[in-house]
């Protein structure tokens, strides 16, 4: 049963349908929030807020085949709220060690995942969001562009820039 059908069932008061939706999306949403915020308690809060909001908005849901985008948009908004509360600023690109000539195979050679994790954490919230929406949400770049209210080209450029930044971070650490 697809997401829209489950939502319609949940709308009719069938808790089982809502539970099925939650089972399907609990790991992607929680993983996304956890990796974005780096805090289990906050990720748990985002997760709860998202699903409670879905439940409270069941009546208003219109089945247009965009449930996944809708749920990740909600999660994204809540995550951004946390960033705003924290007054966390995006990574200052000017301070990055930028080198177009960094070894191309640095990521391949990197075996220590902690370094990659650290490098990911150094990315701006927006840059990380694209990667996590892609990996945890299994969304297309077009869907991501809709969630983030950005043109597709901008999303792709940001994704490429993030990969370049990761390469540079890891290159700088290796050096």
């Amino acid at each position, binding site marked *: 049963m697809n997401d829209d059908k489950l939502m319609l069932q949940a709308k009719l008061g069938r808790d089982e349908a809502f539970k099925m939706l939650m089972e399907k999306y609990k*790991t992607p949403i*929680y993983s996304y929030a956890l*990796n974005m915020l780096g805090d289990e308690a906050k990720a748990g809060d985002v997760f*709860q807020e998202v699903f409670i909001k879905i439940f*409270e908005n069941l009546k208003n849901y219109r089945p247009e085949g965009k449930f996944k985008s809708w749920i990740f948009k909600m999660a994204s908004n809540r995550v951004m709220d946390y960033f705003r509360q924290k007054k966390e600023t995006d990574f200052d690109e000017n301070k990055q060690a930028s080198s177009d000539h960094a070894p191309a195979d640095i990521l*391949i050679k990197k075996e220590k995942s902690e370094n990659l994790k650290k490098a990911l954490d150094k990315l701006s919230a927006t840059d990380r969001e694209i990667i996590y929406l892609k*990996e945890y949400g299994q969304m297309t770049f077009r869907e991501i562009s809709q969630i983030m209210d950005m043109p597709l080209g901008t999303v*792709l450029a940001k994704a490429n820039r993030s*990969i370049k930044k990761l*390469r540079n971070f890891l290159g700088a650490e290796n050096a």
Partner: protein
Amino acid sequence: MHNEETQNQLLLYFYNELDDAKGKQLLEHIKNCALCKMRLEELKNLSLFVGQNKKSPPQAIVNDIYCHIRQAKKPAYTFTRRFYKPAIAFAGAMLVILVFNFFKKPSLPEDLWFEDIYSRLETLHSDISEINQYFASSDYIMQAKIDELEELVGNMEISDI
């Protein structure tokens, strides 16, 4: 060929979002491009790493949501439970009334005729009562006259007669 467009195409290709024609073209390029092969390898490693960091939420959090849903539904459930039977009974009664009215025999001419007859009989009965009263009063007057005559006759002498 390593411009921004190629980088974008590599990303789309890696995630199966590039159309077939462009995909074939890019694949031809990748075969002869060590740098693009490495970029694809980077994407693969990044995807694997991020994928490994998937984590499910603690069950307690999930249970909290279920609990919240149950709480949110509770008032509606109590209301339904309280008024369920009376509502059904009321609806049933209304249905019976509706059905009765629907199938009720309409007034026939015979019924109207009988109604007319009853009305006429009542009028007749009333008229008879009036006649009886008249006769009753007539009897009284007649009796008074007879009494008066008897009294006159009683006072008369035989010779007078």
